[in-house]
């Protein structure tokens, strides 16, 4: 377990804001190349790996997205401050006072904020307006800043992972490096089914990479490995918590992008119960995952989502329980091992008329 956790920590320390996943991808390739039969990077930047199974030829796509939410430089002001926009869903209130790295050179910067002493009464009680925030790299003026950064540069949060409390890990980008870490581990083992391990790009900007990956793989079944919302903090109603940290990996029944395959989810539940692996259902239907894209690819794919609950997801300080990660690894592996014997594919039976 130590090894997988160290890999996860390393993955979160790399920057891969949507459209700029290269550093994450290179690291993943270095870890999986010796465990797969083939791999390539497609036009969009998805890393698609292939592992031939020993059995029926059931095609299983495993998806984990490499990208993370972040920022993009959109303008360099005359005073040398950088205007930015968010890439993916980031709340303005979590941007204030953050450490960032700008561009491929990783120029250090911070997101400043008007001191409380200088705020008007309305500003004091109101919300943070993203439009007023800028990144400060310490440049004296525009010219100096232009020597260091370019418009379009991606900006990532500079937060190193910390293990703390009772078996907790804080890190940026747990969504979805935790899925990547699970997928890396899964690829180290052998299965009856054929495995297409897809490390996808641009999930946070509208589930983009998964579309082209699914088109190329044309799978029968897909399992999306994710980090998901969790807000099990006081004063939150239980049904609004989405998931609970430490209660096992979460299974999605429905979210804004997908209604998952009932048979596949039932199979996962059975596997969990048979093996005594804790699991929970995600209780909110907010958010979307690559499952939504993959499901409607080709002639249709049976999809499921297994996810580690992540508190404060889409912030630089997301928190997970390490036991959820362990249990997700166990569960996903057991599910893959038992898939070929239990899945019925409409296609094999001659289409929907025969069902």
């Amino acid at each position, binding site marked *: 377990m130590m090894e997988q956790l160290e890999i996860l920590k390393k993955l979160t320390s790399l920057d891969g804001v949507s459209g700029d996943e290269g550093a994450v991808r290179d690291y993943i390739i270095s870890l999986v190349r010796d465990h797969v039969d083939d791999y390539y990077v497609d036009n969009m930047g998805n890393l698609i790996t292939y592992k031939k199974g020993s059995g029926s030829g059931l095609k299983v796509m495993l998806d984990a997205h490499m990208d993370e939410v972040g920022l993009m430089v959109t303008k360099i002001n005359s*005073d040398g401050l950088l205007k930015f926009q968010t890439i993916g*869903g980031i*709340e303005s209130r979590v941007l204030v006072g953050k*450490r960032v790295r700008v561009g491929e050179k990783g120029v250090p910067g911070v997101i400043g904020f008007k001191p409380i002493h200088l705020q008007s009464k309305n500003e004091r*009680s109101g919300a943070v307006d993203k439009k007023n925030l800028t990144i400060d790299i310490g440049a004296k003026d525009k010219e100096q800043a232009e020597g260091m950064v370019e418009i379009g540069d991606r900006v990532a949060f500079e937060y190193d992972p910390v293990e703390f409390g009772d078996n907790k890990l804080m890190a940026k980008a747990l969504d979805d490096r935790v899925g990547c870490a699970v997928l890396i581990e899964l690829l180290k083992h052998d299965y009856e089914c054929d495995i297409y391990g897809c490390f996808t790009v641009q999930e946070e900007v509208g589930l983009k990479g998964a579309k082209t990956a699914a088109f190329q793989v044309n799978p029968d079944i897909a399992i999306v490995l994710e980090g998901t919302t969790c807000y099990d903090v006081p004063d939150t109603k239980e049904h609004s918590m989405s998931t609970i940290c430490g209660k096992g990996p979460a299974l999605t029944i429905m979210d804004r992008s997908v209604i998952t395959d009932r048979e596949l989810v039932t199979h996962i539940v059975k596997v969990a119960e048979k093996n005594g692996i804790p699991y929970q259902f995600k209780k909110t239907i907010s958010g979307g995952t690559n499952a939504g894209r993959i499901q409607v690819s080709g002639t249709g794919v049976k999809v499921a989502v297994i996810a580690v609950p992540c508190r404060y997801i889409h912030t630089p300080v997301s928190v997970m329980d390490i036991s959820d990660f362990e249990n997700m690894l166990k569960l996903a592996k057991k599910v893959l091992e038992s898939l070929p014997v239990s899945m019925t594919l409409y296609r094999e039976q001659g289409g929907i008329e025969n069902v």
Partner: protein
Amino acid sequence: MNECSELLKKLCNLRAVTGRENMAAEKIAEVLRNYCDEVTIDPFFNVIGLKKGQSEPPGNVLVTAHYDEIGLIVTGIEDSGFLRFAAAGGVDPKAIGAMEVIVHGKKDLFGVIGAKPPHLISPEDKDKGIKMEEMRIDIGYDGEKAKELVSVGDMVSFVNPARELMNNRLAGKSMDNRSGVAALVELLKELKKLHHDDNVYVVATVQEELGLIGAICASYNIKADLGIVFDVCHGDMPDAPGDETFPLGKGVAVAVGPVLSKKHTRGIIKMAKDENIPYQVDPEPGDTGTEAAAHAIAREGIPTILLSIPAKYMHTTVEMVSTDDVTAAGRLAARYIAGRDKA
């Protein structure tokens, strides 16, 4: 990295939440010991360094810079293990969402102040400001363990370590006012090169953020005939009133205003011009909100000068200063102490 940045980085990474400066007092004393004849720590944890003057009897100059920092105080421990908190000093709730902290409980505990993800925020809550009482610290323990390790009243400090940016600028927590403490050291270093008649008492003071408490004690205990305060003033930033903010890297800000000694302020500005030390003028119509307000009315009244280091984003965890300004502050004060006209 220059020597001053190195020192300031080190100072900023100390933890001394206002009212609990005992956490860092000895470390501050260690730094001052390198440059002083005597260093003592008073019952309030003011750290007092004395560099003796060469005349008999010497006059006394008091130079203060507060070393406490804003932070949080634990006000409750939930059964679920999450901590409630309130501000210790002027903390802006808008500036602490998704933040790493250290809870100074039975031992130092890492924690985070969480934030609701966008997926779970309702449209009507999106534009609302968040209140501190709605926020919690997550230390990753259940209620039982949390209650064993943390007590109500424990202090909490922010993590953001100082990092170096372009143009000798540093950004991080506690630039307010470790940059003032760094200026004390710059002052002492410069004084080593100079002949000075007066005893110079440099005091790293406590509880400024709670109302100048440390300075009030220091200016009572040390009978000074000149007071100098190092603190921070607001650095330039967009969308802030231009007459209340000052550019970084353009020199130390010398305050002019009712509570400040006209004579000494004029004198130090002349000194800056003569010695070619970069400075700017900071108009302060009120009591300055700094320790100068305490010194000015201590005992018979101490004629006081206020030297401020421009700091951007004050009271956030990314306060930013230029160490060029810190060095300028120390040098200017040293030159003035050594060469001042005592008539």
